């Protein structure tokens, strides 16, 4: 019962954060609407990019046009969830709050500090990108030859959840460095660059990079492996590996966050 109460309390907190964020973002309405248009445009631009390539070739590393777009749709969905919620909070706003003392003020609040850091600002501008992402799914699915299966679909959703947890853990580790470096928006740009690579099939990488991006810094977990699971071409070993790897990374990220928190001494005046 206590657990349920706790969940409800945090959902209420999330709702409050969302309302404040929306008010903040609507302060300059023209920017808000332009940002929405731009984010939609960005998806269209990548589609145009893929279209331009597939006008010249039939496949890239065995991925046809529909399948490659399905990977991109999967990436867009994960990217959308991360951007709406924790990504910018951890990698861009957190360092700002450390610097201006807002984080210190938040430390005395009766709520989980990591939760408040991760969800302080909900990005409503990104929320609207769900519509073009869903259209992209529809467009890609109509161009795929794969036969839909319930088991593969369930696996796909499991790996999607795993992908979100993987990015959350990765981003949490990077943001924890803020406790020592204070100003580090560079981590945000770095992480965005690395995650951006996941929009293409990781089968394009060869040699050492193939090993790195599949198993060591496994950006394959984000879109390529879920898409492979959906198509029924991902081995059980790889599914297991991605789940175990993410669980360990999540545990390590939390340990590192707590370590950073223990060693934090206020940065502001």
């Amino acid at each position, binding site marked *: 019962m206590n657990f349920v109460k706790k969940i409800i309390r945090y959902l209420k907190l999330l709702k409050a954060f969302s309302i404040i964020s929306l008010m903040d973002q609507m302060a*300059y309405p*023209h*920017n*808000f*609407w*332009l*940002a929405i*248009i*731009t984010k939609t*445009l*960005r998806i269209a*631009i990548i589609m*145009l*990019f893929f*279209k*331009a*390539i597939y*006008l*010249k*070739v*039939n*496949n*890239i*590393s065995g991925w046809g046009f529909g399948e490659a777009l399905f990977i991109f749709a999967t990436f867009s969905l994960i990217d959308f969830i991360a951007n709406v919620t924790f990504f910018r909070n951890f990698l861009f706003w957190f360092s700002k709050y450390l610097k201006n003392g807002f984080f210190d003020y938040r430390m005395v609040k009766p709520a989980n500090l990591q939760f408040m850091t991760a969800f302080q600002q909900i990005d409503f501008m990104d929320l609207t990108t769900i519509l073009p992402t869903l259209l992209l799914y529809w467009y890609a699915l109509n161009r795929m030859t794969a036969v839909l299966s319930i088991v593969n679909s369930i696996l796909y959703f499991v790996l999607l959840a795993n992908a979100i947890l993987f990015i959350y853990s990765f981003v949490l580790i990077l943001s924890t460095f803020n406790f020592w*470096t204070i*100003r*580090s*928006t*560079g*981590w945000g*740009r*770095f*992480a*965005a*660059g*690395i995650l*951006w*690579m996941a929009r*293409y099939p990781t*089968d*394009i*990488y*060869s040699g050492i*990079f193939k090993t790195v991006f599949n198993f060591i810094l496994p950006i394959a977990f984000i879109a390529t492996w879920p898409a492979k699971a959906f198509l029924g071409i991902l081995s059980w070993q790889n599914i297991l590996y991605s789940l175990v790897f993410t669980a360990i990374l999540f545990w390590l990220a939390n340990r590192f966050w707590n370590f950073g928190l223990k060693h934090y001494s206020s940065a502001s005046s």
Partner: protein
Amino acid sequence: MAYRANFFLEILGGAAVSGAILFLWVNVYKNYSSGAIGGYTLAEMITYIIGAGLIFSFIFTTSQGDEIDDDINEGFLSNYLLKPLNVNFYWLTRDIARKILTGFLGIAAFGTIIIFTSKYLAGPASSAMLVFALSAVVFGALVHFFLFYLTSVISFWLGRTWGFRFVIRVILEIASGAIIPLSFLPGIWKNIFEFLPLKFIAYFPMQIYLGKLTILEIISGFGWGILWLAIFAGLSYYFWKKGIKHYTAVGS
């Protein structure tokens, strides 16, 4: 440069993006039996992607527009107006100085990718083409400056205007030819983007470098560039004159 590690991480992120695009193109060529795709050999494509990526990611990654926006909205402009300097010229030189610095740092950071791909890289078509290409980069830098200048001085009326710059940054990704040569795009898009001045940022300089344009096309390209710059300069002058009359600053 006060935060070197920060800056280095930003560059590393940009290099990762270019690296991914390179791998993608290598794979595209692997699955293609003929030597060239759309008139580009693998060496030319890799050179194009690295060159365009370098120009786009580093030389043009500046917060110039945001700073002009800040100067207007936070009242710093009042200080500049009191000083014996031309504010617009100051903004332009600040932008050029930063572009030169980030350009050099970008080359250093891109070094790893260049070393990895050195066997594929194509040299300039001739030394004259190299000079023309570098001149075209300067043209691109000016086009870039004016684009962001124009979307910043409208702050005189609209307050914060980062939304406009966000639109331009995203459109630039493809319309400047940074991730793919414009000649690869489907019909109508190719025609639109080849008409717009955004091509001067990456596509036009790289086309010259690779010897894809005749002397006549280069001269005509520069002619269009001058025309676009004149339009931008005229619009900038107009908005500045109108805007400065509208400008108010409060506070100490």
